[in-house]
Structures are given as C-alpha cells and as structure tokens.
C-alpha cells in the first residue's frame, strides 16, 4: 500500500512541479528508471518470499540506478551503446522477478501446488 501511495504522490508531484531534466540526459534517466524498477520488482518478489531486506533494497535501488546511468554515460563517451547491456540485464531480471511474483499469487489464489 505504501509503495503505491508513494508512487502516486511522486507522479502527481512530478506533473505539478515545473522542473525538467534536460533532454540530452533522457537516455541516462531512462536507464536509471529501469534499474530502479528492477529493484522494485526484486523487492516485491523478496517480500512475497519473506526475504525482504530494506538495506539491500535501498542500496540496489540507488546503486543500480547510478551505475546504470554512469554506464550509459561512459558508453556515450566511448561511442558504444553500453546502456543496452543495462537494459538487457535489468529487463531480464524484471521478468524473472515478475515470474516469481506471478507464481506466488497463482499458488495463493488457486491453492494448486503444481503451479510451482
């Protein structure tokens, strides 16, 4: 509940605030968002399994976002699209974590052990 409330509050705040990130940084921001989303899905999966750790979540959330953005920046400077690696890695993990979440809920709803 808290995450959804926070997300909604953030989106509203972002729409209302007159602040913009310069367009030339849009690819770094996008990659950072992807990394943060990865942490969110990871956190959700972990909390369903009862393994959620706030410290790991925070460090992953900010650390992954920063590293992804930094990699994208370095890639731009080197003329190679390293951000694709970040997209692939985080995208892959998002789907994996989503699979964990999916199985957890299906198991809970159908009470069918064969799903796992």
């Amino acid at each position: 509940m808290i995450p959804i409330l926070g997300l909604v509050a953030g989106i509203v705040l972002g729409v209302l605030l007159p602040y913009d990130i310069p367009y030339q940084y849009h690819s770094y921001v996008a990659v950072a968002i992807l990394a943060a989303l990865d942490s969110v899905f990871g956190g959700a999966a972990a909390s369903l399994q009862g393994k959620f750790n706030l410290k790991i979540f925070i460090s992953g959330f900010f650390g992954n976002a920063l590293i992804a953005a930094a990699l994208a920046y370095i890639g731009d400077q080197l003329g190679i699209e390293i951000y694709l690696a970040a997209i692939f890695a985080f995208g892959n993990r998002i789907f994996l974590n989503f699979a964990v979440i999916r199985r957890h809920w299906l198991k809970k709803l159908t009470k069918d052990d064969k799903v796992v």
Partner: protein
Amino acid sequence: MSAAYKKIVLFVMFVLLGLIVSIQVKVIINEREKVSAKNLDSNQLVEQIEELQAQNEILEVEIQKALKEREELTLSVISDQASYELETKYNQLNTVKLQAGLTGVTGPGVIIRLDDAAALRQITNASILIIHDSDIMALLNDLKAAGAQAISINGERIVAMSEQLCAGPTIRINRNRYTVPFEIIALGDPDLLNKALQSSERLAYMTRDRIVVNIRTSRSIYVPGLNTANIKLGTLMSNLEVLDSDIR
C-alpha cells in the same frame, strides 16, 4: 530500524521513483512535440515564398515591358495615320490617365516616413505603439485637404478606389500587403503639405505616442502610377453604365 522508519523510507523512495518517471515522461512528450513542430520546416515555406516573390518580380518586369511596347505601338499607329482626331483622343487619354493616377508623375512634395514606436516602455495597451490603417487614412485625408496631387504609400499609388485596410500586422493597399516602415509621398505645394501635417491632429497623437514620424520636403520626387495588374479595372468599367462621356 523501527517499522515506522522503514515505512517512511519506503514511501520516500517510491515518491522519488514516481517523480523521476513522470518528469521523464514529461520531457519526452515535450521533445516529441518539438520534433513534430520541426517537421513543418519553416525554411521550406520561406523558400517557397522567396521563389514566388522572385517569379512575381520577373513577371512585373515583363508587364512593364509589354505596357511600354503597347504605348510605342499606339504612338506609331498615330504617327502613321497622321490623323488629328486620333491625336486628340490620345492626348485626352493621357490627361485622363494622369488624372486617374495611372501614370507616374514627378514633382515637388513631402516624404513622410512612419514606423512603429519602439517597445521600450512598459505599456498596458501595446496597440497605441502600432501604426493603424486609420492613422494612414487620416494622414492621407489631411494631405488631400492640403491639395496633394498624387500620393503613394511604399510605392503604391493611391487612387480613388485604393483601400487602406488593416490586415493583421500589415496594411493592405491596392490589394498588396505592406509592413512598417511606411513611406508616404505626397506631391503638391511642399509648404502647404508640411503645414497641414504640422497641424494634423492625428499626427500629433502619433508623435505623442512616440510613433516614429520623419517628414522631409523635396523639390522633385517620383510617384509611380497605379499598378493595374492586381485590379480588375476592365471588368469594373464594363459593368458600369457610362452616363456622361464628356471629359472635363
């Protein structure tokens, strides 16, 4: 770490995520709009306008050439036939042309340059900084009252049917559009015209509003004849019933 503390941290982090996502989406949407506006490509439109203007100029020269040729042909026909009647008619035609403002004329007069006031002042009503069609009309009337014989604005001869119509940021004269600065040339007694301008109520208001007004007199100025290319005089004349054909 207490549970409440954890909740606050979690909340703040998701606020951050939502914030950055919505700002990113906003930036991307803005950029897309900019790109689609760029696709209109104002450069291409400017090029088209310039091309058409160049074409117009070429055609204008051709028209002038053709008119001159017609004039020469008329003269040669008259001299060939050596007819007194034809010569009288030709002279009459020239008089009418002069009176109607169809011919270019040279003479003494005044040149009035008008430009919009510089928008330096903080002003609530910017309209008074701009030259309006009514300003031009009032000035023309003042000049006519002072006995102006021939008037042109930006090289556009003013005749009985000339309009001075406000068309957005431009003024339409003889179906052509003109922007500031306006140069009004009025032929007549320079002293009389000058005095009329000095005592013109409208001009006084315009100078008060700091519209740029620059008047000078000249011994000899050229005022072009009416360019009839844009005006369908022929159709107008053919639909009018002539009641009194005598030219006074």
